[in-house]
């Protein structure tokens, strides 16, 4: 198990000493006033001290904007700054919800919003399922007795390092009508296809490219989980002559469950927010078939000639609600499995 060995305490200490030598002095300096503070507040009061910087920055740059967003969603007009906007109550929300039939976006006043909602829902289901299956497969394979495992690990992790814009561009050049894929098909005597202008294929491409870009990250989390499963469990199973499939269902999967859960949650959240790479790849087209919620919000609130920040804010509040529900749902499942394990 090379990765574990490589982060042995010794090497940690080495890294620590390199990185922390200049810091050491500062840290010791800080210690004296903090001891005084600790006397005042007590040990548990120090928790607040540790928490404060993060919560302060978080409050100013995440929570406050979220709150302001809510105020925005109650105002109208095209002005950018709140002071210049007029209060209109829940009009933006009712405009978003004004709809003949929610399953037919074209019957809605804001048809683009509902199309985006539908697309995002489909995308999340497909992308998360497929990506997790593939990440699991990759992790299982990387967990085998491979030589040069860190090389293979890097191969699959590599796209995670690329910026979304680059990811979108590379694949656009591969998939467009005059792209590399069609050229390859043509050379092999197969019929080239216009991948990015066909509704179904463009959607599939959006799913595939976003899997390509993110799978490595999740495969790595799963791989870490697999490597933490004690080897003797497998050895015992092999002695008993247990079938490989049974070993997988009975040993691997249950012990991997916590990691799988983390993967599912992170992947879900990331998928709901899909934007950059698909925006570069398809621009939301053909038609509106790969236009997702984030793009709708961005274009409505920021990018179009006549901005409507209020409408964008209302849409983002709705999206934020979905994200919170997803996360809480995960927490619920997390608690339940935790409870089971304790029993």
């Amino acid at each position, binding site marked *: 198990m090379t990765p574990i060995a490589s982060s042995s305490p010794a090497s940690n200490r080495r890294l620590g000493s390199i990185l922390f030598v200049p810091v050491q002095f500062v840290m010791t300096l800080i210690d004296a006033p903090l001891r005084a503070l600790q006397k005042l507040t007590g040990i548990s009061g120090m928790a607040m001290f540790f928490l404060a910087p993060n919560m302060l920055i978080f409050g100013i740059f995440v929570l406050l904007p979220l709150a302001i967003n809510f105020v925005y969603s109650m105002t109208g007009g095209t002005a950018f700054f709140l002071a210049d906007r007029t209060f209109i109550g829940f009009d933006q929300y009712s405009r978003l919800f004004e709809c003949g039939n929610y399953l037919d976006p074209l019957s809605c006043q804001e048809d683009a919003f509902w199309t985006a909602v539908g697309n995002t829902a489909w995308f999340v289901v497909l992308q998360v399922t497929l990506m997790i299956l593939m990440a699991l497969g990759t992790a299982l394979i990387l967990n085998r007795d491979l030589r040069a495992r860190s090389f293979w690990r890097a191969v699959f992790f590599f796209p995670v390092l690329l910026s979304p814009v680059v990811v979108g561009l590379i694949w656009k050049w591969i998939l467009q009508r005059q792209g590399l894929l069609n050229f390859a098909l043509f050379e092999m005597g197969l019929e080239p296809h216009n991948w990015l*202008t066909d509704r179904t294929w463009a959607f599939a491409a959006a799913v595939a490219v976003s899997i390509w870009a993110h799978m490595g990250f999740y495969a790595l989390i799963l791989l870490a989980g697999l490597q933490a499963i004690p080897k003797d469990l497998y050895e015992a199973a092999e002695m008993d002559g247990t079938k490989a499939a049974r070993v997988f269902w009975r040993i691997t999967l249950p012990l991997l469950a916590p990691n799988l859960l983390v993967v599912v949650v992170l992947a879900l959240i990331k998928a709901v927010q899909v934007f950059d790479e698909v925006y570069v790849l398809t621009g939301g087209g053909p038609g509106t078939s790969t236009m997702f919620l984030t793009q709708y919000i961005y274009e409505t609130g920021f990018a179009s000639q006549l901005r409507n920040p209020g409408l964008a804010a209302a849409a983002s509040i709705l999206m934020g609600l979905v994200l919170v529900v997803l996360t809480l749902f995960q927490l619920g499942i997390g608690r339940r499995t935790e409870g089971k394990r304790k029993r």
Partner: protein
Amino acid sequence: MNKKSILAGLALALLTGTAANAGDVRVMWYSDGVEGEVMKDLVNRFMEENPGINVILDNVAYSVIKEQLPVQLEAGNGPDVARVTAIKDLAKHWLDLRPLVKDPAYWDENFGDKADWMRPDGSDQISGFMTQLTLTGGFANKTLFDQAGVEMPGPKATWEEWAAAAKKVADSQQVPYPMAIDRSGHRITAPMLSYGANYIGEDGKPAPLDQGAKDFLTKFVNWTEEGVFAKDVWVSAAGNTYRAAADDFINGQLAFYYSGSWQVANLATKIGNNFDWVATGSPCGPAACTGMPGGAALVAVKYTKNPKDVATFMDWMAQEDIVREFSERTLFLPAHKGVVEKGGLNFETENEQAKAALGTFVEASKSTSETALKLPAWRWADTVYAAIVTRIGQTLAGELPLEDAFARIDADIAQKVKDTGL
């Protein structure tokens, strides 16, 4: 600059916000090609001649001009001078140079006819000048026409004639698409106007799509479905995202490409000697043979702290020989009346096709229709363009029947007008 001075600068900036030094003129500039380099040259020359003024050229992506600049302006921030395309929309933020420039009469004389494009309605403000004019127009792949043995339609040919000829060429030469037009409301407006469309209602607000507009859009959608117009470029994005079909033309995949004068330099470098191409001007419709004018302007921003220096800079940039040099080196059409009338621009290219094409565009600009000339100064133009591109894009992707698209376009525009609260 070393680390310390940057850190110190940052600390200072933290304390003081964004302070401008006296004598600084910040220019926000975007580039489609070499004009950034040309501009850098000119700015350096200006600073040599005016030692007290420090001009800083901030090259930015076009999206910054389009998306971020309006917000900066609304917050009272922004550069001192900017190269902008949405000049009418943001007119209230421009500085009136009339009391500041050396000779307002020179400005009125040479840039007066486009001054309305960049000032609030009803004022006589001098906001800046057009760095270049553009005009939409067609390009034909002459080699493909020759190979197919099809005669190229003449200068007064209609869209139908071009469509028929291009179709013949494409069929005989196995080219994927006969024609293409950029995915842009500005581009498609040209043929719509030729078919008699008029977007401007009697009250100055957008009118519902008229018969002329519907006629061309119906034709366009039918042509695209029959494969006369390239579908790719129009369905390759959602919303009103701009997409150009230039690469298809460069690769000899199109017989006829409708775009505009700004493509000349691009086509010249990328096509090289691969095939012969010509600019054709705009094909005709029943009502006119018009292209759509447009362009980018260099404008001064009201929130500047150094209006005097800004005016000195603008005066210098607007000089006849500077405008001439800028046009010659960038292959842009000049908007300076004196330069245009004297003519004899010696465009700096060895490519004869490019020179000929620029000549064609200058010629074609004379048949620009009245309506076309009004649109750049009309504040709702971009709203109408956006709605048309968005909805027709959906129609071509098979999401929205054409009749519904027409209804949606009118509804979208009405909603935007209502949102603005006017």
